[in-house]
């Protein structure tokens, strides 16, 4: 996998036949109960969240879900959450804190949804709250970047104790197209942009931005290894006193 160029990795992260967030949720947990709504104004279908059992222990899952076809992609606006979506995720995460459930966040987004309504409804503010409140959550909080990890829209669900990435995934300050357009006023230089952004899991692991690269899972794969791995990670994090967990988490970001 590491022999792919950065741009090939971008394409692999975006491929439509990738395992979806919903498939991961249902493959990893049992008795999943999906929660809806931000309790303020909407229910953003780009965000799925709820409660399930991981090895028979309750966890909260929040994730960003792209559509499988054009209709679904329009409904889920291509996996780009609105401010209402981020607020839905945060209210579900705050509830996890109340019931001492650790949080698994699954990220696959080109970025937060960039439309006029999202600006009026405070997209920046919504992401900001997910970051500041996410970093203080008094429960273990693990993120897996499944495909695209686009900018602040991805960071909003990636401020926890561990950040893992699938082999075919990317994580960057903005899309290679956006970078090429801003840096060189030429969005066709996307391959060069992908190289410069250092957005591959290998580059990010070396830089300490992420903690581990996870073997790529395809739709229909048995997820029991991933389940055991997450069970072990959550168990280890749960052993730390809460204050120390939160301190370490904040230190993790203080170091960058």
């Amino acid at each position, binding site marked *: 996998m590491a022999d792919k160029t950065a741009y090939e990795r971008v394409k692999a992260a975006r491929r439509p036949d990738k395992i979806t967030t919903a498939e991961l949720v249902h493959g990893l947990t049992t*008795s999943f*109960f*999906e*929660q*809806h*709504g*931000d*309790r*303020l*104004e*909407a*229910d953003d279908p780009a965000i799925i969240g709820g*409660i*399930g*059992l991981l090895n*028979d*222990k*309750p*966890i909260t899952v929040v994730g960003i879900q792209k559509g499988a076809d054009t209709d679904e992609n329009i409904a889920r606006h291509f996996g780009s959450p609105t401010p*209402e979506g981020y607020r*839905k995720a945060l209210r579900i995460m705050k*509830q996890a804190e*109340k*019931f*001492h*459930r*650790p949080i698994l966040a699954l990220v696959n987004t080109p970025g937060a949804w960039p439309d006029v309504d999202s600006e009026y409804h405070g997209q920046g503010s919504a992401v900001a709250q997910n970051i500041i409140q996410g970093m203080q959550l008094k*429960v*273990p909080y693990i993120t897996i970047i499944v495909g695209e990890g686009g900018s602040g829209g991805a960071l909003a669900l990636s401020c926890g104790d561990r950040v893992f990435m699938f082999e075919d995934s990317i994580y960057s300050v903005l899309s290679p197209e956006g970078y090429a357009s801003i840096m060189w006023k030429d969005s066709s230089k996307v391959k060069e942009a992908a190289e410069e952004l250092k957005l591959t899991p290998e580059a990010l692991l070396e830089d300490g931005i992420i903690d581990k690269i996870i073997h790529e899972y395809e739709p229909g794969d048995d997820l029991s290894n991933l389940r055991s791995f997450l069970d072990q990670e*959550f*168990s280890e*994090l*749960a052993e730390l006193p*809460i204050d120390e967990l939160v301190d370490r988490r904040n230190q993790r970001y203080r170091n960058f």
Partner: protein
Amino acid sequence: MLRSRFNMPSHEELVKRMDAIPDHILRECPICHSTFFSLRAGTSKTCPNCGYGFRITAKRRAKITFDSFEEIDKQMTVPEQYKDEKYLAKVKKAKKVTGINESVLTGIGTLDKQQVGVGIMDPFFVMGSLGSATGEKITRMFEEATRKKLPVIMFTASGGARMQEGIHSLMQMAKVSGAVEAHSQAGLFYAVVLCDPTTGGVTASFAMQGDVILAEPHALVGFAGRRVIEQTIMQKPPKDFQSAETVMEHGFIDAIVPRKEMKQTLKQLISLHTKEQGYGR
């Protein structure tokens, strides 16, 4: 002519025959307007066409939802300070129809052997309105659940505050909210099921304070009623603006659950929140 071979019954005879047909043999769904034999609604009293759950008494709901149910504060009723005859007559009739003494039935129920605090509002008791004793019963049930460390399930069905009890009815919204928060602070789980109709002061307090909020299909859920909106600011609200489905789209409901699946969903939620094994401390 064909008709001449038969003895056409007289008008009087037809009226007599009509009277012999028992009432309520057919039923019309207020949501989808389909007509069907009442028996087809089954024990869950749901429309076979659209899944709407007909309004049912609190006692029936307790029976179809919980494995066992033990009532508390059974005798509590409208305080003696209220003496208006019309009001008291209404309450008297409501007691007869519902078999309970206030607009909410409270107690301790079990689901898969797990005890839960239960409150079930009765839409046939003065429209499920929130009287002083209604608020007191719900508050006591929450307090009992907090003491016993039990989750709470609340079925709401209410026209809102009880006008006949004035400001004391309004205060119930705050009183119950205090008990809900104390229960929540103790780390306990609270599920709400919004039933048809959930409106006014009940929506604006404990109906919207659950950790998880479920609703029955097509239940009316709102704050200000259609007529109040139309007559106060002269705005004409859209047809389904307060259906559970619309309210869910606007972010206030976790899931809409058909009545037949309600027991199973509640068991799942209670189990998820009472597991002994977990990563937390």
